[in-house]
């Protein structure tokens, strides 16, 4: 990721911001533009990020961040795509399942443990916990008086 490549993105997606991360370059994007940006990063030959090697969410109490780690398997370039979900109670983002099939299960995990809904996901169910489980355990305000001991 360099200045030149970033300008290509900026032209197409005005909301994109670029920062040098600790390990990989990071770009931040509005949630509404997430799927189209991801589609562009995969399809465009100048980027061609064909391998999604990690996807997760972070709970910052006021909002969630979705984090996508991408790799181009030819050039071995990596990049991190982030988006902020401001509405914590009805968090919703577009599914990238159509772009990287592996996202199907990462998204199910994020739905299970954070309660983020992904529109366009083919089979959004809990993946680890039972279907009748209350709450989403990886949220910071999750309360479980029996199993979680506060120190």
């Amino acid at each position, binding site marked *: 990721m360099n200045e030149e490549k970033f300008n290509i993105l900026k032209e197409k997606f005005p909301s994109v911001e670029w920062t040098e*991360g*600790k*390990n*990989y370059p990071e770009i931040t994007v509005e949630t509404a533009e997430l799927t189209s940006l991801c589609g562009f990063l995969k399809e465009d030959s100048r980027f061609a990020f*064909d*391998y*999604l*090697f*990690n996807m*997760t969410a*972070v*709970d910052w109490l006021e909002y969630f961040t979705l*984090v996508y*780690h991408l790799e181009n*398997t030819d050039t*071995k370039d990596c990049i*991190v795509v982030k988006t902020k979900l401001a509405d914590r109670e009805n968090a919703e983002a577009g599914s990238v399942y159509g772009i*990287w*099939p*592996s996202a*199907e*299960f990462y998204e199910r*995990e994020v739905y299970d*443990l954070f309660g983020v809904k992904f529109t366009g996901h083919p089979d959004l169910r*809990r*993946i*680890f*916990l*039972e279907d009748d489980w209350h709450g989403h*355990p*990886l949220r910071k305000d999750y309360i479980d008086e029996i199993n*979680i001991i506060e*120190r």
Partner: protein
Amino acid sequence: MTEEVKEIMFREHEEYMINMGPQHPSTHGVLRFEVYLKGEVVTKLVPHCGYIHRGIEKMCEKDTYPQIIHLTDRMDYLSAHINNEAVSLCVENALQVEVPERVKYIRTILAELNRIASHQLWWAAFGMDLGALTTFFYGLRDREKILDIFEESFGSRLLHSFITPGGLMHDVHPNFQKRTKEFIKYFRKKLPEYDQLLTGNVIFQNRTKGIGILSKEDAIAYGITGPSGRASGFSCDIRKKYPYSAYPFVQFEEKLSHEGDSFARYQVRIEEMWESMKIIEQLVDNIPEGDYTAKMKAVLRLPEGEYYQRVETARGELGVYIVSTGEKFPYRIKFRTPNFSNLFIMNKLASGGKIADLIAISGSLDLVIPDIDR
């Protein structure tokens, strides 16, 4: 022919569902496959995981970094050293600590010994899954030698928690070098036996060749890494791509195959054992003298930010993603475990095949269930 008899006779043409697991010897743990069948042809397969979900990521949010090491052992328990190393490297990178050369060498030797032990157990169990009971005894006999080396140095055989942020828990046993060399010498003679026993077997070949073919495109799209990905031609070895520890100092090959079937996955693993032995041989005589740990503070506080570390376990790419707010606990930690991704290709590989092939496919993917559920 009455209607009732007709119904029973033609029932096999209807689709029906059976549960494989959660307690089934071939799933190697508590995992359930919901298998939809027409006759004996699998039409759809839905994996259900979470039976051994312990919430390791949530627990880690209340633990200090040295404490987290002990939880990572319990994910992929057959690659315990490598899991420990992943978290240690991530913490060291964040703190910008340079570990002594000795530590790098020992870590790499341990990781490769661990990889061999893991592949031996996989080979043993894979043969047994397909009805070749003898392999189990041969595999475990040789794995025992490695576990003995581990036991002598760390006091434990499976969950070592030996590699810690900054270095090692303590120095290795004085016999470590000698016994490792003895093992390599021993195993170089024994590994050809594996080929003689199983690889050339006609029944085994018929049950694995052309079964569960995975294309390179699918391997990348679904994130299938490790030997399973490399058997499809996906060059995904983190040791080569982003070398860490002592891997930059050694010569070894990344074994690739392009067939992508169960037999290719089998062969890649067998060849990887040869490569691992090569790596150990290059390192074991040259372990530098020095400290077994770098100078670390009593309480580790990572600077604010996000860190990611990738390592190659016996089953694929393990990623550790740490979000720190400057506290002594991580704000969020996520383990990108290889088996999680590798499991969900099962539907694609098994659909359209016979139910007996399902065992060959799941065996060749080498799943470890606690690594999926975390």
